[in-house]
């Protein structure tokens, strides 16, 4: 089966000539292995026994009451995945691919550090060297994940360019790949980048949507009325949406980073950007009139990205998915509500999806049960969220 290179007009391979050969090689490898029984069985065993899949579907009854969602509020518990987020689904799939392509070295970019930790973990598991690029600002706000990556044997390489966040880390990872392309596989962490990455990442994350569709049917006897997920680059969102794209009655909602609110800085590429090229693909992008890429802002490092995956741009244009946003403030309060009413500390990224569910509860519940991709847990965020919410460890 051939791999999707474009989603409508979006996607493509806008990268230096040097890596085109490697993209061809990756495309061929994925076409060959995506249906290969040995590859699938090795990945399946790891997802089952190492990651902990299938992840449970959980009904959040107290939040459901507090927010007035009588039809049911369900969480797809990707936060229970080994390493704490959905990122491991992709990292394992790609590291097994890298092994089969004979690559000796793994690189990755990371924002919140969840993809970095997942890649460091997968690399340790198969014994490949790993370097993770991370913006210096993100290294400070996601300190715990920096320590985890180093404990796992990965080298964390600080990036000072630009605003020291995910965009800059991704650029630097691509430059490393351009230089070491013969020996190195670049594991992109979101559904972004040049083709075939957006398709590979979406495919590897689609397990979220496939599982949760079956689980909803089993638990409730029906499909959800709406599915809500946060969108930075958009890998957890595309993963869960892919389970429901053909179910026309299921509303799909992506929640971007609203940052400081309407008049301030934000990360809402689909709402306020226009199409352009960043990191190898054509997609919605925050940029100035000259095409200079704007610096995004979000309280959550994982959503602090001026671009978005090309499939989301297409789904936006054709109206299949509605993209909205939630501010830093709304996300922080939802973070606290979820922690205190469900005993689940969500990742700050995930808290954006929860904030939207809370703030749009009256319209969402009209469609039926609400399914949220609880994409990650918030252990990594305790320093930053604690500081923002005035919670500390003082005696």
């Amino acid at each position: 089966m051939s791999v999707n290179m474009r989603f409508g007009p979006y996607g493509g391979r806008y990268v230096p000539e040097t890596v085109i050969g490697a993209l061809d090689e990756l495309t061929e490898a994925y076409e060959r292995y995506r249906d290969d029984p040995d590859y699938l069985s090795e990945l399946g065993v790891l997802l089952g026994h190492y990651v902990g899949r299938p992840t449970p579907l959980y009904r959040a009854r107290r939040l459901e009451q507090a927010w007035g969602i009588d039809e049911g509020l369900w969480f797809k518990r990707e936060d229970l995945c080994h390493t704490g987020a959905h990122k491991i689904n992709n990292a394992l799939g790609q590291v097994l691919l890298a092994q089969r392509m004979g690559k000796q070295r793994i690189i990755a970019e990371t924002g919140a550090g969840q993809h970095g930790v997942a890649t460091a973990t997968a690399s340790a598991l198969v014994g490949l060297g790993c370097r993770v690029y991370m913006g210096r600002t993100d290294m400070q706000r996601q300190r715990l994940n920096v320590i985890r990556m180093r404990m796992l044997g990965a080298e964390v390489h600080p990036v000072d360019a630009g605003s020291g966040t995910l965009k800059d880390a991704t650029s630097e990872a691509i430059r490393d790949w351009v230089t070491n392309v013969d020996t190195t596989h670049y594991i992109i962490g979101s559904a972004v980048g040049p083709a075939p990455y957006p398709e590979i990442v979406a495919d590897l994350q689609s397990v979220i949507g496939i599982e949760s569709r079956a689980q909803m049917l089993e638990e409730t006897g029906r499909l959800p009325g709406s599915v809500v997920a946060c969108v930075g680059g958009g890998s957890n969102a595309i993963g869960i949406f892919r389970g429901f794209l053909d179910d026309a009655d299921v509303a799909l909602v992506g929640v971007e980073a609203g940052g400081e609110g309407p008049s301030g800085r934000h990360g809402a590429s689909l709402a306020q950007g226009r199409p352009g090229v960043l990191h190898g693909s054509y997609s919605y992008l925050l940029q100035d009139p000259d095409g200079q890429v704007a610096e995004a802002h979000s309280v959550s490092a994982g959503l602090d990205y001026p671009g978005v995956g090309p499939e989301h741009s297409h789904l936006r244009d054709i109206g299949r998915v509605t993209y909205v946003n939630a501010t830093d403030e709304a996300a922080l309060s939802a973070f606290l509500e979820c922690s205190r009413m469900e005993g689940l500390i969500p990742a700050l990224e995930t808290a954006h999806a929860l904030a939207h569910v809370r703030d749009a509860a009256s319209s969402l519940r009209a469609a039926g049960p609400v399914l949220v991709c609880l994409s990650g847990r918030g252990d990594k965020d305790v320093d930053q969220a604690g500081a923002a919410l005035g919670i500390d460890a003082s005696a």
Partner: protein
Amino acid sequence: MPESGAARLERVFRDAGRPLFVPYVMGGYPDIDASRRHAQILAKHADIIELGIPFSDPLADGPTIQAAGQAALDSGTRPSDVLDIADDLRDGPPVVVMTYFNTVIAQGASEFLGAAAAKGVAGIIIPDLPVDEATEVREAAREAGVALIALAAPTTDDARMAEIGESAEGFVYLVAVTGVTGGEMTMDDRLRALVDRARRHIPVPVVVGFGVRTPDQAEQIGELADGVVIASEIIRRIGDAPDARAADAAVDDFGAGVADALRS
């Protein structure tokens, strides 16, 4: 009908009868006036000027050009400012602008290329626009009379070299190293074989760049290829100069040195 950019570039190669010197100037670094001066100084020594339009996320560039581009953006440089520098170089060697794809499509490829042509630009290099994505832009460029200069790399296989060669105009920019700008090339059998392979598949002149730092290296490349690009080294010398006058002198000295090496 004025002579097309491709024809002007090809004529320069034909008339020179020796390898060409293609120095790079980052428009707006360290500021617009200085970069205009540097371009004019280099124009005395150069056969073609490569003029960079800064972009916020230059994926093919190493730290030196990244920092220069960021400095240019920080001081408010816009694409139109850089095109004005090209306008001022009309009496000199042809100008080829180098920028990234998003800069070109932000205002629309036809508009951008039309504006460039109106300022006398002969060609454009877009390092993140590989040959298979370039069809529309190539048409817009032909329409505007600007040559779309393709890049080839050490990792480009023979079939792709031929594909690049088929649509090539002006010249092809052959990347000497597997990597970003600002490293250091070494003249070895591998590079000789690469240039040889490129020349077999590509009917237009082949210019080599990435990691060329010294007049000696330029001379060695000149023995194999039709021209040589030097970029990061020039920026480094500008950055190392204690003041603007010293920077001008450094650019002049270096340009003269490379030009001499290629003429000897």
